[in-house]
């Protein structure tokens, strides 16, 4: 691109966090607007949706367009950016009357349980009354506008991206406040009479005019940055400043004077008396609030039954695809073929890990995408499991009629296998050995074939598969669950097809009875229950993430978590396994293990075994049991220790998940492009040169803020675990004080875990799966 004009107009950037916020706001608004339009169509016409969308678009243009890229070089551009934030985006957003649509569009549990208490809390209402009073809104707007134009503060914002964001946020925020009494978004009520908005606007225009005139006529450059900065196309800084002042003056004043004139005309016109809204007629605040609550109930925000939760199956195309057997089979076939290709390349390809499919796809991409899918959707990787074909083949050729021994119908074996896997991973550097990776895949094929070929049901998935156990545990944080749509339908059901099956459709092979199923635990998302239910009563529903971590109720096929020490041990292996697995790739731990090998003259597998014995078994065991004892004593509760520990062990799931997420997503991003040269190599070896020659020094999606991302994920994990521990503690402590005492030791354990995880992410790391390693 050699044309500067093209370069200027292509200077767009996508700031991740604000863009994500804009998209999310729009999604929630749209969802709520659709609901409200059914109930009160006259209040939410299409123009409100357009106005809200336009406001968000103006905000996006201000922060992502060339306006932002050139704001530091030209004051006039910076001024247009500020006008968008102060004058255009806020009134448009408010014209969309976003309060009710956003409330109605947010997940029901969030509006009801998280926001609900705040919305009716008297201190919040008091703050709201002050914040939205025209005296305050006008003063805040003027103060923000004037203060940020004082040279030292303006220079501060120009010099620091952080302060620049603070400045933009304060412009948008005070803009929203300022325009509030003018737009008066429904269902808010005016504090001042309408005519008072005329002096309100005129006063705002006065301060704007004074500032604009100063910028226009001042004979020196006010902001040194623009004087010292490069002059694009030879424009002089003083002319630039003058033009910026004019932009502030003319279009800025119009934004105040046009509405003022409009209000004055309407006010003076006898025919156009403003029609009071149906809510504005209600004088009593209590009655008015009750009316709003009633409306929210009608759109399903407050009621548990008025509307079902969000159901992925109800989304056109996506829902049909997810339900379709053909789609699922197709995905499983694709994954099966990929697994075969990986195994073949692992055996026959080069044994340098980043050059082999077996060295990059399973360890970098599949694991990273799995945790992302678990966080965003649910256990979709079990849904498209490549071993399904092998299991089905086993059933075809073998009896598949034996019963899995009763003592093994627990998670003890699975926990042991997971621990063995984590040991083998580190001891034999599985990530660095395509050959061993290929053998693992073959071993998996054989195990799935024989176990499900000999035993009834999904024995392999439920009791053996370590990958499946990982998905079961981590999917407790997922926002979607295979779940019944209506309990009433299940109450009248006499056939229980969801678990028994309906010929030829089999029921749940993992023995999860839908009516009593309460979480994703043990659910492979196979959707057999969905197809078996004759009432079409099973959906893929949105649920409050994490709530099953603290839910103490019994659940189908699993019982209460408190009575399942095997499940607790499995969880603890995953949680502390996350820490030891991540620690295995940092320099201090690597050096320590090498030193131990030399000093004690031990082979690496033995040293790794010792490391895991301490890091994953002994120390965590002592810590968890010690915390359990302290919790029992401080809270003076009499439940058995194993029950208490089993219950609280589940609360560590968010932290464990966070460590896996930070670790595996780090690898995914740093090794994002590694399959490309590997696929090129494979294609070349198959005489398909059109894929091009492999470029082994290929770039990645690694970005400087990757460490920030890891820290934030770990913090969210900590907060999730703390909250879950508090919820469990509330079950044990009858009084609040007692609950705190039960909770305190577990919160210390959570913090300790978090500190170790943070220490790990700050260490130099081995770049596994890439050429850098």
């Amino acid at each position, binding site marked *: 691109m050699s044309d500067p004009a093209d370069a200027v107009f292509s200077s767009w950037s996508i700031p991740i966090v604000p863009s994500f916020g804009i998209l999310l706001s729009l999604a929630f608004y749209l969802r709520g607007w659709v609901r409200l339009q059914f109930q009160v169509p006259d209040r939410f016409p299409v123009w409100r949706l357009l106005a809200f969308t336009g406001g968000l678009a103006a905000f996006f243009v201000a922060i992502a367009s060339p306006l932002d890229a050139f704001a530091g070089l030209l004051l006039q551009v910076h001024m247009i950016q500020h006008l968008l934030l102060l004058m255009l985006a806020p009134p448009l957003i408010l014209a969309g009357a976003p309060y009710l649509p956003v409330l109605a569009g947010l997940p029901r549990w969030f509006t009801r349980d998280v926001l*609900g208490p705040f919305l009716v809390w008297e201190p919040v209402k008091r703050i709201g009354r002050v914040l939205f009073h025209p005296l305050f809104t006008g003063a805040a707007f003027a103060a923000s506008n004037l203060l940020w134009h004082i040279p030292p503060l303006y220079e501060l914002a120009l010099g620091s991206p952080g302060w620049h964001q603070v400045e933009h946020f304060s412009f948008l925020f005070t803009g929203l406040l300022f325009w509030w009494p003018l737009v008066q978004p429904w269902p808010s009520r005016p504090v001042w009479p309408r005519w008072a908005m005329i002096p309100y606007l005129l006063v705002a225009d006065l301060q704007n005019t004074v500032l604009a005139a100063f910028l226009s006529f001042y004979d020196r450059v006010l902001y040194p940055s623009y004087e010292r900065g490069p002059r694009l196309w030879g424009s002089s800084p003083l002319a630039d400043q003058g033009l910026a002042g004019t932009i502030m003056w003319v279009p800025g004043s119009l934004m105040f004077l046009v509405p003022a004139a409009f209000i004055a005309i309407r006010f003076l016109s006898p025919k156009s008396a403003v029609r009071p809204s149906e809510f504005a007629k209600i004088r009593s605040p209590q009655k008015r*609030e009750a009316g709003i609550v009633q409306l929210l109930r009608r759109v399903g925000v407050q009621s548990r039954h008025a509307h079902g939760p969000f159901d992925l199956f109800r989304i056109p195309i996506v829902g049909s695809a997810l339900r379709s057997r053909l789609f699922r089979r197709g995905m499983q076939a694709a994954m099966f073929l990929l697994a075969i290709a990986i195994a073949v390349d692992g055996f026959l390809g080069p044994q340098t890990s980043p050059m082999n499919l077996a060295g990059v796809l399973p360890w970098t991409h599949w694991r990273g995408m799995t945790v992302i899918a678990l966080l965003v959707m649910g256990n979709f990787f079990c849904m498209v499991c490549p071993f399904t074909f092998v299991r089905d083949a086993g059933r075809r050729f073998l009896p598949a009629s034996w019963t899995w021994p009763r003592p093994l119908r627990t998670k003890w074996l699975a926990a042991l296998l997971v621990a063995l896997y984590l040991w083998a991973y580190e001891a034999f550097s599985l990530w660095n050995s395509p050959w061993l990776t290929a053998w693992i895949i073959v071993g998996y094929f054989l195990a799935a074939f024989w176990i499900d070929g000999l035993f009834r049901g999904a024995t392999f998935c439920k009791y053996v598969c370590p990958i499946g156990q990982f998905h079961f545990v981590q999917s407790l944080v997922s926002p979607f669950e295979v779940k019944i749509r209506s309990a009433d339908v299940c109450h009248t059901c006499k056939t229980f097809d969801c678990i028994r099956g309906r010929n030829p459709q089999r029921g749940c092979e993992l023995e999860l009875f839908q009516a009593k199923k309460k979480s994703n635990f043990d659910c492979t998302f196979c959707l057999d229950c969905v197809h078996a239910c004759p009432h079409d009563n099973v959906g893929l529903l949105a649920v409050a993430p994490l709530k099953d971590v603290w839910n103490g109720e019994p659940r189908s096929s699993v019982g209460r978590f408190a009575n399942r020490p095997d499940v607790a041990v499995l969880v603890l292996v995953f949680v502390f396994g996350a820490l030891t697995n991540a620690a295995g790739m940092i320099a201090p731990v690597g050096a320590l293990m090498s030193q131990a090998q030399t000093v004690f003259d031990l082979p690496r597998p033995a040293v790794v075994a010792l490391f895991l014995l301490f890091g994953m078994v002994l120390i965590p065991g002592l810590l968890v049991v010690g915390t359990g004892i302290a919790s029992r004593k401080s809270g003076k509760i009499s439940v058995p220790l194993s029950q208490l520990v089993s219950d609280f062990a589940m609360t560590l799931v968010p932290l464990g998940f966070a460590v896996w997420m930070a670790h595996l997503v780090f690898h995914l991003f*740093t090794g994002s492009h590694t399959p490309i040269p590997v696929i090129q190599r494979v294609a070349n070896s198959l005489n398909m040169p059109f894929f091009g020659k492999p470029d082994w020094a290929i770039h990645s999606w*690694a970005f400087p803020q990757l460490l920030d991302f890891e*820290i934030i994920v770990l913090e969210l994990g900590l907060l999730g675990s703390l909250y879950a521990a508090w919820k469990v503690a509330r079950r044990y402590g009858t009084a609040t004080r007692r609950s705190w005492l039960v909770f305190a030791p577990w919160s210390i354990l959570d913090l300790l875990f978090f500190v170790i995880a943070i220490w790990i992410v700050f260490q130099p790391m081995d770049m596994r799966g890439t050429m850098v390693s």
Partner: protein
Amino acid sequence: MMRATFILSYLLLALVRISWADGGAIQFQGDTGTFHVTVFTRPPILHAGLIDITLLLQERSDLNPLLDAKVTFVLTAQDSATTQAALWMPPACAMSKTADLSHIPAELGHGENRLLYGSVVQIPSSGHWQLKARIQRDAESAEIETLLSVAPAPLPPLAYWHLFLLIPAGISGFVLHQMALGRKTHPAAAR
């Protein structure tokens, strides 16, 4: 309180003394051959670790931006006596870093502003570093140089403290939520 106010004021003043553009500090501005060159660095105060170097190339006569040149940066440690190895740096493997500081190709479209040539560079240690920018356009070549003062890499708590605000914010939100739950007065808050 006085001390905190003083430190805050000093920091603010220290920040605004530097001339900025495009969110970065101007390290060089001047003419060479038929070119007018401006070099920016981010973050504004340089520390050992990752820094972003960008360059605006303009025609000397009319200050039109030039986008068809080939620009290369060269970084050389100048003051070996005061050069200290960084105590700590962000895990460098998170970046596709340039290993060879003697030849750092600067690309157009590297950042938000597509008029700038730029590259992200990992400076391994603190001290004084000489930055050269070699410009090649058609048959004409030019070179500018400037000196960068690089402070030691900040320790993790200083570099990342703002990220850790999420925890107290989350806990405060929870406490307020509990207070709101304890004093709920309206059926809207009831389950």
